């Protein structure tokens, strides 16, 4: 599958492992609950890279101490109108100085990619892969802005 990362369309190597599934080899992401449950025994010894997927109801404060060990944070959108991920991304970048990949996943619109990028999200996996070029082009929608940008 392809995604946008750092303003380029690239092939993606990550797999999200749902809470009831067995861990796989390679680069995987898991829920916050699973991270907390399995990090000591399994995830910190995983052979690939490990990421954590945050839902809007998760608090980024709860992952703050582990950020150095996590190479990907996925901010998941169950619905496009739920804007909590925008603040989560801002907090990860500005409060916790997270420098790894932050990726928006789930049900959001290509039209939201521009704002998402401005709060610090640098990777986008879209519902429809055919929307990737359009989403990429929205990054150029505005050449001016009134607020400081995080990207």
């Amino acid at each position, binding site marked *: 599958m392809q995604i946008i990362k750092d303003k380029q369309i690239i092939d993606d190597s990550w797999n999200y492992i749902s809470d009831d599934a067995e861990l796989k080899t390679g680069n995987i992401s898991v829920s916050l609950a699973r991270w907390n449950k399995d990090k000591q025994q399994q995830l910190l010894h995983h052979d690939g890279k490990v990421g954590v997927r945050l839902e*809007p109801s998760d608090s980024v404060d709860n992952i703050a101490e582990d950020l150095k060990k996590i190479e990907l944070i996925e901010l998941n959108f169950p619905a*496009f*109108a*739920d*804007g*909590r991920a*925008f*603040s989560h991304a*801002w907090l990860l970048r500005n*409060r916790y100085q997270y420098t790894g990949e932050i990726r928006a996943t789930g049900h959001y*619109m290509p*039209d*939201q990619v*521009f*704002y*998402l990028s*401005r*709060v610090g999200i640098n990777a986008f996996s879209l519902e429809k892969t055919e929307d990737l070029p359009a989403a990429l082009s*929205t990054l150029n*929608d*505005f*050449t*001016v*802005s*009134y*607020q*400081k*940008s995080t990207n």
Partner: protein
Amino acid sequence: MYQYNEDDQTLIEERVAQFRRQTERFLKGEISDDQFRALRLMNGVYIQTHSPMLRIAGPYGLLSSKQFRKLAHIAREYDKGYCHFTTRQNIQFNWPQLERIPDILEELAGVQMHAIQTSGNCLRNTTSDHLAGVCTDELEDPRPYCEIIRQWTTLHPEFAYLPRKFKIAVSGAKLDRAATQFHDIGLHLVKNDAGEVGFQVLVGGGLGRTPIIGQVIRPYLEKKHLLSYLEAILRIYNLYGRRDNKYKARIKILVKETGLEEFTKLVEEEWLQIRDNLELSAERIEAIKAQFTPPAYDSNAAEDASFAQHQQENKAFATWVKHNTLNHRVPGYRITFLSLKAPDSPPGDMTDTQLDAVADLADQYSFGLIRSTHRQNLVFADVKQVDLFSLWQKLDALKLATPNIGTVTDMICCPGLDFCSLANAGSIGIAKEINEALDDMDYIHDIGDVKINMSGCMNGCAHQSVGHIGILGVDKKGVEWYQLTLGGSSENEAAIGERLGPAVAKDQVAKVVTTILDVYVKQRLDDESFLDMVKRVGIAPFKEEVYADN
């Protein structure tokens, strides 16, 4: 008046281009209804009963004659020849075609206007005192801060998908004419003990389904921290505001459920971590203030004697001066209201001819500027007294001189069932009936200050819960009924109206209003106002008379 720089202009032009692409994709079927709904709302486009409705921002209610001419042009070319002024100082067109809205927006961008964030669950147009900069009870002009907030809110990336809409109002005067206690955030310019001017910050006020009076979250905020404090409140709201039920999603519910003390703690903790990175420099404030300097007043304006003479000779003129003009802080000038409440036209509506004519009059008599008010009228802020007589004659010919400002026929009214797809009941027709029942100007003037606010549904666009007399249209099994409240106020002594009793039928509303006014006339003490009397006697005497026959 604030003039756009190159970046401001680029930004609104890029927004027009973006919305054009979005509209084209929707019309080609590439965006779903649900997704386009969110995108169009964030640019002021509603789908209404008959056609789309486009809401254009009137930043803190200040518009130029050039912008008025553009509105006239749009009314003529893209609509049915009129527009509507709202209670939030915005302008609405009720009949544009969706595919032509990008063209309208392009026309607006040509005169530094836009429809950005005039609806949707985002940061809305910042409103203010319509008498800012000219009234006699002002500590400091709030408009420079409104403009600073306008820029900060515009396309704010983090706060575009809030739990619900978010409205900010700023006032700098003793009398709160901006209903700041009924906004998500209300800002009051105040002096601290050291004599410095800053902001009192209120949070969690709001109207609609659950009217709540805002509470003070910070008694004094230094000006340099304005934006960081707003950002802290918004971040807490975005993270913790309820998203499970849209009727409980406004910040007022979060403040209520969290408790003011705990909510304040969350905001202050957030603020302490960000405030040093988001300071407003004194230079920035001064640069924006410089765009709101007073016009070149004539220092001899008060020497004119014709103004007094015309009032003596012409009773109709004197009556208009008494009701539709106010003292100005500069001698020889008066603040002049243009009433958009002529008895036979829908409250707040203006035709293209009126818009053009008002633009010309503004150029001739009031430095080319026009303000829209929270009660859906217009203001020429700076009229020389020597000009008032000829201005009055011209306004009268345009049906904009009904001497009813602040009276019972100066009603706030939403578009209601006639236009709005949310409405349960009509409101414009009721306004007309009330006008017909109250056709005696002397009686209206004798009644004095009575504010009737009327909404066609619980969303309360016409702020019925803070009307001295509030009228709310409800639907009962497909029939329109109306609930009345008494004693509401959006000014300093903010109050939410108390329900009079069971809802009344549509054909009874005008009669009930006249009955209420008759009770007031009979039972008032000396020069007691309607609101004071309701406070003194409660609703019982009114209730008794209104429901006497049942």
